């Protein structure tokens, strides 16, 4: 023990900056953080077990409720893992529509993050502007899939609703009109003095630390590692010429810039997928029950999402395992916090875009 007396301060589970409960036990030397011990388990719902108890077709709606933001990506991962286990090939139109919905989900998730970051910094008007733009995407979801966030668009074997030409043009036009609105937010996020002061050099993670702690998603891309599951080309990503977005700063600012640039990239990908939308069926009929094991990886807005399943030939799954991105991003968070000031803890914690209900399932 050093000579300086330490103080233990609980951060969370209820904290004004946190939308969801995570507890960080901070060890402080004066105002400086020297140690962090995280604790989760406040919103565990037992979804993995619940998935074993009901038929595999009903689970699509259950896994969508793992996360209240990236719910479509969860449904996509679940449908993909069941399709892998049952060796079902889905029609190309369904693949493209899945990309469109994934990217719309990414846009609204990242805009939500940008708003929350602004809110954590006390920048209320930027928070409201970011969420106002997000509303456009949420309305697009309701127009196309029928619901605002938990859209239930995916089904095993394809997607549930088709997009006709008029609706497609409407979506393309809305995304085009949204771009200048995002530009205005981007300008503030990139150049505002307060935001730069509070994020540049805060919560720095090095490349080595990132690899050692197993960071995923925008946290890993912000340290200069081009790691994105979309590079594997699942759904229709292989045909859309996807390039991951990489920044090198490794701090809260770099993570924010990665997400901001991903909003633009997601708009481009959604546009491209809609423009190239092939004609044909939107789903194939799936018969029988899943048997054997399968693993699938998809890129959720917060990083890689892994679904594992094991079927035993009955209508219930023997096992469903969900590994969410925030779960693996907690060790990087614990690595980046020591050394920072207590006042920076909320912003750094938020910069990993934690989704605790995902983490605890």
């Amino acid at each position, binding site marked *: 023990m050093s000579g300086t007396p330490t103080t233990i301060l609980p951060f969370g589970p209820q904290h004004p900056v946190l939308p969801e409960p995570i507890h960080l036990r901070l060890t402080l030397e004066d105002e400086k953080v020297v140690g962090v011990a995280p604790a989760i388990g406040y919103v565990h719902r037992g979804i993995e077990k619940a998935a074993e108890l009901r038929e595999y077709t009903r689970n699509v*709606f259950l896994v969508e409720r793992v996360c209240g933001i990236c719910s479509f990506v969860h449904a996509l991962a679940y449908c993909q893992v069941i399709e892998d286990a049952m060796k079902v090939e889905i029609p190309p139109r369904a693949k493209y529509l899945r990309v469109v919905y994934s990217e719309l989900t990414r846009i609204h998730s990242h805009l939500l993050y940008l708003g929350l970051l602004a809110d954590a910094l006390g920048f209320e008007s930027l928070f409201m502007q970011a969420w106002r733009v997000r509303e456009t995407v949420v309305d697009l979801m309701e*127009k*196309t899939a029928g619901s605002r966030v938990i859209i239930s668009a995916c089904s095993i074997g394809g997607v549930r609703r088709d997009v006709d030409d008029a609706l497609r043009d409407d979506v393309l036009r809305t995304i085009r009109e949204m771009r200048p609105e995002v530009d205005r937010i981007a300008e503030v996020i990139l150049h505002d003095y307060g935001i730069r002061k509070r994020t540049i050099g805060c919560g720095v993670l090095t490349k080595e630390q990132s690899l050692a702690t197993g960071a995923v998603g925008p946290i890993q891309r912000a340290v200069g590692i081009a790691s994105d599951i979309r590079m594997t080309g699942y759904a229709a990503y292989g045909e859309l010429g996807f390039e991951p977005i990489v920044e090198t700063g490794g701090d809260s600012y770099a993570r924010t810039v990665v997400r901001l640039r991903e909003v633009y990239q997601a708009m481009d990908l959604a546009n491209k997928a809609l423009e190239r939308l092939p004609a044909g069926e939107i789903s194939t009929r799936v018969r029988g029950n899943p048997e054997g094991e399968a693993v699938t990886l998809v890129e959720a807005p917060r990083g890689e999402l892994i679904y594992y399943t094991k079927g035993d030939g009955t209508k219930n799954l023997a096992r469903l395992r969900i590994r969410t991105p925030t779960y693996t991003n907690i060790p990087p968070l614990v690595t980046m916090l020591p050394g920072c000031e207590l006042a920076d803890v909320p912003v750094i914690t938020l910069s990993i875009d934690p989704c605790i209900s995902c983490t605890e399932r």
Partner: protein
Amino acid sequence: MPWMLSAVLRNLFSPPATRRYPFEKREPLRRARGQLVVDRTNCVYCGACARICPSAAIQVDRPNKLMTFDPFKCIVCSACADVCPKGSLTIAEGHKGPAERKRTYVYSGSEPK
């Protein structure tokens, strides 16, 4: 602060971004899944909806020709409306409003000839 003047003037004379909600309601979007509507006239009580409902909001008692629907359990996923062979279940665009108390609806009737 002259550089803020244009923004200040624009915001001063532009209408508010929000709607005056209770007086001015938004039209529901065309493909929105608002609420489940049950029309029992054609229902044959086959139970397909009850078997597919992910939240067990619908129960069908086939011998007694009874269908129980709990709107507070319903997640408006439209799975039942998609499988209904008689078109008795449809999804309306408007979202359901708040209720004073919870209630479960029981539908009954005879099979059409």
